[in-house]
């Protein structure tokens, strides 16, 4: 999907949004405590991206992920000043809302385990699995060495396996 979009320099924003909206929203959930907050981040990043010259780059989709990440980090900094009441209200949202409704208990346990990962591991997993990026692309998006991305991914999968084993009898 990504490769085909790269060959469409004249693609409309809707085609980009159709291709990446779901992935960006999931990625944005790393920093937003609510679905509405994640959509705010995607909106901000997507509009910035579409108006920037980066959208014509060969690796434009990486810029898109990076812009969501930056908006997310800005959001976290701003959120640190918010009242406890607002934060508690946001935390009430279902943590499993990152994904479509889970069909069984195992999937639900996977989703819960993903939410428990350290943020630096979770963002790598999200980009690799659901963002469909290679380790090299993950590394460029997060501005980390590719080996670091690979090792974080490996640790994350191990943690997920352990969490899943512990949750299933």
């Amino acid at each position, binding site marked *: 999907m990504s490769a085909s979009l790269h060959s469409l320099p004249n693609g409309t924003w809707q085609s980009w949004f159709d291709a990446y909206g779901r992935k960006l929203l999931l990625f944005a959930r790393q920093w937003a405590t609510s679905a509405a907050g994640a959509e705010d981040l995607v909106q901000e990043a997507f509009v910035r991206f579409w108006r920037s*010259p980066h959208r014509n780059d060969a690796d434009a989709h990486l810029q898109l992920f990076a812009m969501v990440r930056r908006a997310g980090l800005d959001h976290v900094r701003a959120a640190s000043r918010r009242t406890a009441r607002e934060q508690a209200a946001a935390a009430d949202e279902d943590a499993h809302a990152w994904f479509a409704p889970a069909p069984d208990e195992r999937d639900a346990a996977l989703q819960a385990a993903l939410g428990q990962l350290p943020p630096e591991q979770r963002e790598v997993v999200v980009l690799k699995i659901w963002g469909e990026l290679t380790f090299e692309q993950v590394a460029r998006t997060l501005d980390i060495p590719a080996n670091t991305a690979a090792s974080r991914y490996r640790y994350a999968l191990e943690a997920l396996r352990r969490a899943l084993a512990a949750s299933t009898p």
Partner: protein
Amino acid sequence: MNTPHDSFEDELRALRAADPSLRLASRIAADLAAPPTAPAPAAMRRTATRAVMLWLPWGVAAAMTVAFLTHRPAATTAQAPTPATETATAAPSLAQDALPRFTPVSTTKTLVGALDEGVVFLEDGRPARKLRYEFVDTVDLLSTDASRAMIAVSTPREEIRLVPVQTY
């Protein structure tokens, strides 16, 4: 670099990320249909902004940058005799050509703090609530040369608003 195929990864991949709402697409469409001004970050979206307050620091920064780039030490000028005027004027030009040129591509305004400082009284005696907002304004600058380097310049800013209040 990529790991071999793993069935556990397939299991993860089978989890389907939630779809964005239709409202999000509508909001993006509305944003893109509007004139290309800087999109406000989520934290700031509900807050009215003052363009003058936003651009004032950048105007000062730009003026300081121009002053810095065009500044020549007095000693250099003193050593350059009158016949060498052409050389003296050409040198800064060459130096400036060698510098990468950056053009602003986007700006963001992030609200990082808000403080209600209570009721104060204006000069005419009317009461008003004093609200202090702390922002961080960021401008992304993109190099116009082949490197396409990007730098971000952030400046803190405070905005004080006096909101008239009525007493009964």
